[in-house]
C-alpha cells in the first residue's frame, strides 16, 4: 500500500513527487510511456511567464506569479538550465494599445514585478530584428526560458534519490475504491494507495471520470513550432510575444535555453491526444504570423519542427484540489499554459493538501534538494577534461559531434535514477541528435550504447514507446554468415 500514487510523469507530477519526498511518505509515480516528460512537457514554448496574462483571481494568475518566483531556487538546486531573459509583448498599431495597457494593468494586479511600457523605437533598440511596425511594447524583466523536460527529469531523479518509487510503461486503465483508499488497475500489476493525485495531462478528464462524475472536459489544442540551428539563436535575446487574441497568446519568437531559436505556436483544436503531427498548413501559418514580429528570420536554418498539445479544460482555469465525492483523490488537471511556470508553486500547494490529509507526516531526514552533478564535458577546462578521461576513458569518446557529447555522459544518463531507456530519452537528456545533423551520425552509436548498458539486443532498443521499433531484424547476409 502506497501513501500516495501520482498518475502522470510530466513536469507537474514530477515536481509534486519531489516536493512530497521532503516528507516521510511512501510515494509512487506511474507513467504510461517509456520515459517521463514524454507528454506536453516535452513539446511547449518553454517560457517561464512573468504572469500578466491570466485574469486576477484565477488559479492561473496566482500560481503563475508564485511559480515564476520559485524558478531560480528550483533550477539552481536541480542544476537545470534556466535564464531570465525578459520578455516583450508587441503592439503593432494604435488599435492594439488598449490590449497592451490592459495586460500591464492585469500584470500589476497579479503582482508581476518590474513591468515597463516602452516605445517602439526603444523596443527595436533592445531587439534590432523587430519589425518597424512595432509602436509600443510591454517589457517584463522576470520572463524566463527553461528546459521543461530537464526540469521534469531532474525533479523525478531527485525525488527517487530521496525515496520515491517510479514505474514506467504503466498505464492506469481503471480505478476502484477500497476501504482505505484506491486500487489502480494498470497495464502492469494493480497498485493500492491511500491518496491518488491525477496529473495525467491530456488524459486527466478520463482519470477523473474513473472515480467521480464528469466535472470537466479536456480539449486538446495543438501548437506547432519551428526549431532553428544555433546560428539563429541570437536573432532575439528576449522572448517576443504578440498581443493575445481569444485563441491564445499568439506566436512567439524566443531563444531557447540551449541556444536555438524557437518560433511558434499556432492553436488548433484536434480530436485526441495522439495528434502530435505537424502540418504544412499549420507551419505556414506560424511562419506568416511570426513575420509580423520579425520579418527577417532565416527559415533556411530550420533544423526541425514539432507539435505540442495543450490540455485545455472547458472550465477556463486550472482544476486543482480534492474531489468532493472521492476523498483522497486529488485532481491537478487542465494544466495548460502557464502550467510549466506554475508547476513549482502547484507542487507546494498540492503537497500541503496531501500533508493535511495524511495528518502531517514527519520530515524526511535524508532529503537532499540537489542531485549528483551532471558532467557537461564540453564545458570543462582542458585539464579537467583529461582528468575525467583518465578516470573513465569513455569521456574521451565523442559520440555526438554536433553537440560534443561523450560516451561517458550517455552512459551516465542511462544509469542515473529516472535514467534514459530509449533513444529519445538519451536525446532528451543530453541532446545528441538535436544538433544540426539531427542524429544522422550518432543515432547508430546511441543504439549500440543503450543495448550494451541495458543488456538487451540492439533490435530491442526503441526510439520511444514500445511500438517504436528501430531495427526490424538481422540482415540476410548476417544471418547467413552466422549459419556458415
Amino acid at each position, binding site marked *: 500500500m502506497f501513501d500516495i500514487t501520482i498518475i502522470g510523469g510530466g513536469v507537474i507530477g514530477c515536481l509534486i513527487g519531489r516536493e512530497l519526498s521532503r516528507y516521510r511518505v511512501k510515494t509512487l509515480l506511474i507513467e504510461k510511456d517509456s520515459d517521463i516528460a514524454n507528454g506536453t512537457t516535452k513539446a511547449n514554448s518553454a517560457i517561464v511567464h512573468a504572469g500578466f496574462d491570466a485574469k486576477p483571481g484565477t488559479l492561473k494568475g496566482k500560481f503563475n506569479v508564485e511559480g515564476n518566483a520559485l524558478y531560480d531556487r528550483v533550477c539552481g538546486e536541480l542544476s537545470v538550465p534556466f535564464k531570465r531573459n525578459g520578455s516583450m509583448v508587441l503592439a503593432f498599431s494604435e488599435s492594439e494599445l488598449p490590449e497592451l495597457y490592459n495586460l500591464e494593468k492585469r500584470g500589476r494586479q497579479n503582482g508581476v514585478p518590474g513591468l515597463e511600457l516602452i516605445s517602439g523605437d526603444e523596443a527595436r533598440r533592445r531587439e534590432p530584428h523587430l519589425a518597424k511596425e512595432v509602436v509600443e511594447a510591454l517589457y517584463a524583466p522576470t520572463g524566463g526560458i527553461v528546459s521543461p523536460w530537464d526540469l521534469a527529469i531532474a525533479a523525478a531523479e531527485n525525488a527517487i534519490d530521496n525515496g520515491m518509487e517510479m514505474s514506467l510503461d504503466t498505464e492506469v486503465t481503471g480505478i476502484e475504491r477500497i476501504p482505505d483508499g484506491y486500487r489502480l488497475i494498470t497495464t502492469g500489476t494493480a497498485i493500492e494507495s491511500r491518496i491518488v493525485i491525477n496529473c495525467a495531462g491530456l488524459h486527466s478528464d478520463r482519470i477523473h471520470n474513473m472515480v467521480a462524475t464528469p466535472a470537466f472536459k479536456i480539449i486538446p489544442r495543438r501548437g506547432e513550432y519551428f526549431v532553428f540551428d544555433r546560428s539563429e539563436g541570437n536573432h532575439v535575446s528576449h522572448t517576443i510575444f504578440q498581443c493575445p487574441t481569444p485563441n491564445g497568446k499568439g506566436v512567439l519568437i524566443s531563444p531557447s535555453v540551449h541556444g536555438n531559436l524557437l518560433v511558434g505556436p499556432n492553436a488548433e483544436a484536434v480530436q485526441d491526444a495522439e495528434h502530435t503531427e505537424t502540418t504544412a498548413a499549420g507551419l505556414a501559418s506560424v511562419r506568416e504570423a511570426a513575420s509580423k514580429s520579425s520579418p527577417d528570420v532565416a527559415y533556411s536554418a530550420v533544423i526541425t519542427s514539432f507539435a505540442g498539445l495543450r490540455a485545455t479544460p472547458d472550465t477556463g482555469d486550472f482544476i486543482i484540489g480534492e474531489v468532493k465525492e472521492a476523498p483522497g483523490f486529488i485532481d491537478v488537471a487542465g494544466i495548460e499554459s502557464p502550467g510549466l511556470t506554475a508547476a513549482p508553486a502547484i507542487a507546494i500547494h498540492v503537497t500541503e493538501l496531501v500533508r493535511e490529509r495524511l495528518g502531517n507526516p514527519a520530515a524526511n531526514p535524508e532529503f537532499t534538494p540537489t542531485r549528483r552533478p551532471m558532467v557537461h564535458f564540453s564545458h570543462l577546462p582542458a585539464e579537467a*577534461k583529461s582528468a575525467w578521461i583518465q578516470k573513465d576513458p569513455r569521456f574521451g569518446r565523442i559520440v555526438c559531434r554536433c553537440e560534443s557529447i561523450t560516451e561517458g555522459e550517455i552512459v551516465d544518463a542511462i544509469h542515473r535514477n529516472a535514467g534514459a531507456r530509449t533513444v529519445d530519452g538519451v536525446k532528451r537528456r543530453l541532446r545528441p541528435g538535436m544538433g544540426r545533423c*539531427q542524429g544522422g551520425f550518432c543515432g547508430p552509436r546511441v543504439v549500440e550504447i543503450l543495448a550494451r548498458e541495458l543488456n538487451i539486443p540492439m533490435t530491442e532498443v526503441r526510439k520511444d514507446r514500445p511500438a517504436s521499433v528501430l531495427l526490424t531484424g538481422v540482415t540476410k547476409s548476417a544471418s547467413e554468415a552466422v549459419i556458415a
Partner: protein
Amino acid sequence: MNTYEIIVVGGGPAGLAAAIEAHKSGAKNILILERDRELGGILQQCIHNGFGLHIFKEELTGPEYAERFIREMDALGIEYRLDTMVLEVRNDRTVDIISSKHGFETLQAKAIVLAMGCRERTRGAINIPGTRPAGVYSAGAAQRFVNMEGLMVGKRVVVLGSGDIGLIMARRMTLEGAKVLAVAEILPYSGGLTRNIVQCLYDYDIPLYLSHTITSIEGRDRVEGVTIAQVDTKRQPIPGTEIHYDCDTLLLSVGLIPENELSKTAGIQLDPVTGGPVVNECMETSVPGIFACGNVVQVHDLVDWVTEESRKAGRNAARLVLGQITEGEPDLRTRANHGVRYVVPHTIRIENIEKEIDLMMRVTDPFKNKYLVVKHGEDVVKKVRKAHLTPGEMESMKIPVEKLRGLTGELTVCLEEVAHEA
C-alpha cells in the same frame, strides 16, 4: 606541445591520399587523426563495387579501395591515431584533440590538411510535416546499420531523394529481402550517377518518380505510411497527384553537405555554393598553411577524384613545409558562368602550378551537346564538347600551365551552344 610537419584531419580516402603524397613529396613527420575506430572513412560502409575504375583500372569495393591506401600508408610508416576527435583547429595551426587513450591534447603543425568529408542532410532541414516516428533514417545511417551491424532497418521502404547513397541503399535493401516501393525525387532529374539509376533501380523494377516529394509521414510509433505528390516548377505539391504507400521505413537521401564546423571556427572562408572552403591552386584555404581536400571541399561522386584532389593537397602541404611554395596574391580568380554552378579551385597563383591545373566543376541543370568552355575575357583557353552534362556528375578540365602564363584577372567557365552542323 607535440609538433608535426603535417597534421591530417580525417582518415578517409582524402586524408590517406594526402598523407601518402605528402610523405612521398618529402615531408616526414606526418600525423593522421581519425575519430572513428578504423581508417577508410565512409568507404568502410560501401560494400558495393564501383570504386577505383580510374585510379586502379579495376572495380573494387569501398573497403578494398581503402585497404590499398591503408597498406601503402603503413609501409611508409605514417603515424595515425584512431578514436581521436579533432575538436578545434586554429589559424596558428594548432589543433585540440581528444581521445580515450591520451585525454585532451593540443598539437602544433607546420601545415594542416582538412579531410573531414561530408555529412548527410536530414529530415528537419527539409521540413516534411507529419509525425516523428521510428523508421525515418538517413540513407547513410541505414547503410551503417545494414552493412556494418548486420541489422535491418525495415521491411517496406520508400526512399526520398535520388542521391547515390539512396540509390545504392534501394538495391541493398532489396537484396536483403525488403520491398522498396518507390524513389521520389523533387527535381526533374536525378542527382545520382546514371549507372546507379540503372543498376540499383531499373534492374530491380523500383520506380523512380521525378518531380515528386513526400507530403506527409504517418504513424505515431513506427512509420505506417507516406504520401508522395508531384510538384510544380516552384517545387510545390500539386493537389490530386498524391500516391500513398503503406510502408514502415523512409530513407532520406536528400544531399550531402561538406563537414566544415572545424573550418568555420578556424576562420576559413567558405564558398556558399559548394559549402566547402575557398581554395587556391594548391588546395590551400584562405588561412595560410591550412589545406583541404575531398568531400570537405566539394561533394564528390567518385572516390577516384577525391584521391586525385587529395594527392594535390598533400603534395602542396609538403612543398609548403619544405619552402617550395611562392606565397602572394593570386594571378587569377575562377568564376562559374552560364550553366556552371561552381568551379574549384577559386584562385590561382600560376607560379605554383607544376604542370597543369585541374579545374573541377558542376553544371546547374542537365544539358545535352554543349561546349564546356574556359575563357579569359573573350579568349577561349580551353573548349571541350560534351554530349551529356548533369549536375550529378562532376566535370573537370585540365589546363597546361603554359596556357595560363602571363594571364591575370578572371577565368570564367561556362557552357556554350554547339552550332548546328549542316
